[in-house]
């Protein structure tokens, strides 16, 4: 009987000790950018890289590129237009668009022009040069390279949730549109599906 009481007391003491333990010190572990680490199930850098790599290698291997080079005997100029986020998450579109731009430029098969956002700053710089820069180093206005094709797209999601389990389906659709005559010369699609289980317990 006495041992039972002692045990209860010891258990309560143990509980108090548990409460006061708190978390251990912070740990930092450097990992390489191409290592896959999925933590919360949300859209992460791996998704962004996967999609952009696959899509860009797809677009650069299609017929439209050859056709344009034959017709105009120069490389096409591409501009990235609006990629809409129609998904459930606040996806950082900048990193995604950045990945695609990098892949496009580094392929060397297309000419790439600055997008709408970047243009404004460049134009202001040119205007400033008109007033302040030396005559022979001034860059003239109205000499921009007009793009031949615009890349537009959207990201959509479908979620299926039951209790702690969730199936997430991402679909990225990109279209390449000819700026001369509105023809759609290429359509690309990439699907990603994830199965996420939430933790039921934690320490």
């Amino acid at each position: 009987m006495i041992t039972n009481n002692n045990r209860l007391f010891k258990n309560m003491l143990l509980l108090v000790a548990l409460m006061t333990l708190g978390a251990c010190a912070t740990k930092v572990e450097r990992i390489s950018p191409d290592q896959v680490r999925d933590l919360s199930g949300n859209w992460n850098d791996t998704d962004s890289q996967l999609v952009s790599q696959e899509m860009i290698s797809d677009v650069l291997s299609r017929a439209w590129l050859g056709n344009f080079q034959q017709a105009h005997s120069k490389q096409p100029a591409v501009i990235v237009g609006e990629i809409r986020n129609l998904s459930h998450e606040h996806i950082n579109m900048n990193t995604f668009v950045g990945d695609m731009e990098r892949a496009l430029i580094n392929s060397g098969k297309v000419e790439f022009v600055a997008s709408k956002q970047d243009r404004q700053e460049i134009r202001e710089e040119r205007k400033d040069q008109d007033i302040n820069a030396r005559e022979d180093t001034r860059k003239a206005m109205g000499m921009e390279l007009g793009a031949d094709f615009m890349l537009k797209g959207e990201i959509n999601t479908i979620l299926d949730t039951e209790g702690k389990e969730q199936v997430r389906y991402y679909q990225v659709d990109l279209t390449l549109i000819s700026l001369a005559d509105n023809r759609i010369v290429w359509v690309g699609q990439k699907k990603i599906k994830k199965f996420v289980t939430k933790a039921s317990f934690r320490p």
Partner: protein
Amino acid sequence: MTVVAKKIARLCGALLLIMTLGGCATYSDWVGHMEADISSGQPDKALQVLEKHASSKDAVLYLLNRAMLQRMAGDYEASNASFEAAKAMISRVSAISVSEQGSALAVNDMMRSYTGDYYEQVLIHVFEALNYLALNQPDQARVEALQLDVKLKTHGDNSNYEDGFARYLTGIIYEDLGEWDDAMIAYRQAYDAYRRYPQQLEMPVPQQLKADLIRLADKTGLDDEARRYREKFDIKTVPQIPGHDGELVFILNTGLVPLKRSIEIRAITESGQLVTVSMPAYEDRRPTVIAARVTVDGGSVTTDLVENVDSLAMDALQKQKPLILARAIARAVVKTKVSKEADRNNDALGLLVNLANAITDRADTRSWSTLPNRICLARLPLPAGKHRIEIDLLDHLDNVVAKKKYDVDIAARDKRFITLNWIMANDLIPINPLRAR
């Protein structure tokens, strides 16, 4: 010590306890300072008060309050960052913690991490969407609308009603982006939600929503449905928004939600043990301003009540009371057992443990206290260009309490959102103060 002496010692201890109320302060005690700063129009000072009381156990609460204060100060980007952090933390902390449950049984309910009531979690998405709309980023607001849809579908709440304003705001966002069909669906869901509210929540279907249902039914070519709504609501003409016009959406956040107080009941058992059972209760308070009249270019419209956060909060607590009481009683049993064991070993230790258990027993008074008491909304179609808006703030007797002026620039086919937070000193005073012991 004899049994009688023990009992007297306990009684003295209890009296001492009651006189030196100090003990551990509950959440609602220090919130008063923060509220005073908010009502005097100084959200930055309120933020400083909040920073001083940040604790790791109540990280979610800290983040939610910080998000709301940053929103009041007009710093929408920072507010959204706080909201996102709060969402991530809630997701993490929603898993049941074994050690927290243990200490909740041994000490008090505030040992469990705060995850927010269901209605508070819904309002996170609502306010984040409003932030994005104020920043003129409707696509981001749409993301929040989708998250709201997921949240409302998979709710673990055992109430039989859905948040009407969440659906209504979703509809407005879809309309802003030109997605008429989705907007129509959202308005229908909002109408159903408002209709299903129980009487005591005091949230009738807003007149504005009725007009929007008819207008959008006309726009999407659903003539039968439009006719049925016209008959049901007895509305003949509905102001249309001409194609080249924009719209002003005015949102009034008035007052602050009531705070919970801790009510303790103390008793002495026959064996001389001091037992405490504590329950939380709301101290209701009403805002002075309950509506606003928006006047522009000679035409005016009065806001409708779209969200009565006050009654939602009280209803939520009412539903939780049986569970809270069960936990409080279980806690009292555990604590009595512990102090009895301590008593068996050593009298003085037993008395100390008993008193410590009694002092640390306070109800969980945590809630997202920077939420407004009520949310009111008015919509006004306006031609593109600059306009001067005059706002008359009205009390329940339709007297004008204050006036405000805004200059807005409306773009064609675009919606502009203006939010006004109005909290007066009188709004902080409870109607029937409870004697917190």
